[in-house]
């Protein structure tokens, strides 16, 4: 296949996916639709982490910071102005601001120090939200309204449309980022940071920008999650929320946006399947983590490629 036809095939596949996602509620009941919506939200979140992890090689163990900020800002903002500004613009901006500040600190270091800093900073937000009475302390904020477009709050069908639209825009946006010259520089930094520095790229600025972009997208995912579930709690900031994104990316396979989305789908489906049978969900998560790291470092995408000999 030439690059051109491959691009066309990809665009076509993407369009088919969007149409299928839009048509899904017409064919399935309430519960499967809720599951699908959850998958969409977590896929956005996991893809934003994969931009850092799989492309730039910055493994953040504190991505929940931005998910939580997006969720809390959406909850606070939607109560005052239930429009797209409150639902997406303000949470995204808050995510950018927070990622800029945290990024200024964390991108000073790399490797294990980066891991420890991101993990610690995210837990600072958890500790704060857990104490702050204006954020509802440990109960969080409930009764988060859906945005109102054209007068009334979005009903179920319109909300589904809105979720699919935001997810599709996020995919297109992230795709353009990783395919841009900027994205290639990020991969270069991942491969060999010293060389990129020597060639003259301002490596730290590139990493900071990647961190901010990922922060914005994660904040959007958090905002959508608050609207989807109608509430946000300090759990959004907790280390487990970062860990879930890490696991989704590992499950799917790092360095492919589609892999992260696939990982999110596998994770949510597994969770809904398992939670009806056992309380030992965390144990299963831990074992899955260990097994994939040990035996399937390429994730599901890697395994599929090995099987079929596919190249993406």
């Amino acid at each position: 296949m030439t690059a051109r036809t491959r691009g066309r095939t990809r665009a076509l596949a993407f369009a088919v996916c969007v149409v299928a996602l839009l048509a899904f509620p017409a064919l399935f009941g309430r519960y499967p639709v809720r599951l699908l919506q959850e998958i969409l939200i977590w896929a956005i979140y996991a893809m934003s982490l994969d931009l850092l992890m799989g492309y730039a090689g910055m493994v953040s163990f504190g991505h929940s910071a931005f998910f939580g900020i997006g969720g809390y800002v959406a909850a606070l903002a939607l109560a005052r102005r239930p429009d797209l500004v409150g639902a997406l613009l303000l949470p995204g901006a808050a995510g950018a601001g927070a990622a800029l500040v945290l990024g200024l600190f964390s991108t000073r270091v790399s490797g294990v120090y980066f891991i420890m800093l991101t993990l610690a900073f995210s837990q600072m937000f958890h500790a704060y939200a857990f104490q702050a009475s204006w954020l509802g302390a440990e109960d969080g904020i409930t009764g988060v309204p859906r945005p109102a477009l054209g007068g009334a709050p979005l009903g179920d069908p319109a909300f589904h449309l809105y979720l699919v639209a935001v997810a599709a825009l996020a995919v297109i946006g992230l795709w353009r980022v990783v395919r841009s010259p900027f994205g290639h520089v990020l991969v270069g930094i991942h491969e060999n940071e010293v060389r990129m520095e020597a060639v003259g790229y301002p490596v730290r600025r590139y990493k900071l920008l990647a961190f901010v972009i990922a922060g914005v997208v994660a904040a959007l995912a958090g905002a959508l999650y608050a609207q989807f579930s109608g509430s946000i709690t300090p759990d959004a900031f907790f280390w487990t929320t970062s860990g879930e994104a890490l696991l989704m990316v590992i499950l799917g396979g790092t360095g492919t946006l589609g892999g992260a989305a696939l990982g999110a789908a596998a994770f949510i489906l597994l969770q809904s399947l398992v939670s009806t049978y056992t309380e030992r969900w965390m144990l299963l998560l831990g074992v899955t983590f260990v097994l994939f790291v040990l035996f399937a470092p390429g994730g599901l995408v890697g395994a599929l490629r090995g099987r079929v000999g596919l190249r993406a």
Partner: protein
Amino acid sequence: MPSLPDVLGQALNGLAYGVLLFLLSVGLTLIFGMLDIVNLAHGSFYMLGAYVGLATLAATGNFWLAAIAAPVAVGGVGALVERGLLRPLYRRSPLDQVLLTFGLIYLFEDLVKWVWGGRIRSIPPPAAFSGSVRLGSVTIPSYRLFVIAFGLAVAAGLWLLIERTRLGAVIRAGVYDAEMAAGLGIDTGRVFTAVFAFGAALGGLSGVIAGPIQSAYPSMGVSILIPALIVVVVGGLGSLKGSFAGSLLIGQAETFGKAWFPGVSMVIIYLVMALVVLLRPHGLFGRPLK
């Protein structure tokens, strides 16, 4: 202004907490120095130590036996983790090992919840240290004084072990350059296991020692992991001295923060960390990574 006895009492509480953080973070730092990985399951070793201590205490009623059983059992778990799970990953990027230890947090926390249930349990201090002591106008639980003395003794012992013994020289050689040490005929594979098990044992020991002050619950591992990580970021990874200085600093910052700035107490240690990272990205006593 707070009165002098208040300040003194807080300083002693901070010292006890700092010493506990040292017992924990020194294991993290030793393991990092040797294996070049951050063991995120280190807090889980602390938690396992507390629960093994609880079980021993329930069976024997003797705190000191619990304080021996916990490091032995947790050290054994550490050896298994290193041999069975981490060793196959040494040829891959260190990141994979860190991810694996992250997965272990979930695993250990849920296992403990399964076996012992999720509620908070208290570990009573040993009878000899169940009272309190008056130092001038300050009253302090005598167990805290024991913790301070014990922690300082362990710090001194570790220093002697690493700086003054043959085993210490082997460890230092491994930390400095594992490949070179192997070339000189040191069985680094065994040293790796031993150091990991030893670090894990220290984690387990700190869990049982902390028990009478902090009590035991399944998520205690992560609750303590974060301050321990802050300690090694502040002190510098791989440095015994850094781990000691960082622990005492964070112990005081946390204790005085809680007493004097209750509204923002949770964020103070993070601000200390942020300041250190700005001024010295690799910690007070750390060196840039290879």
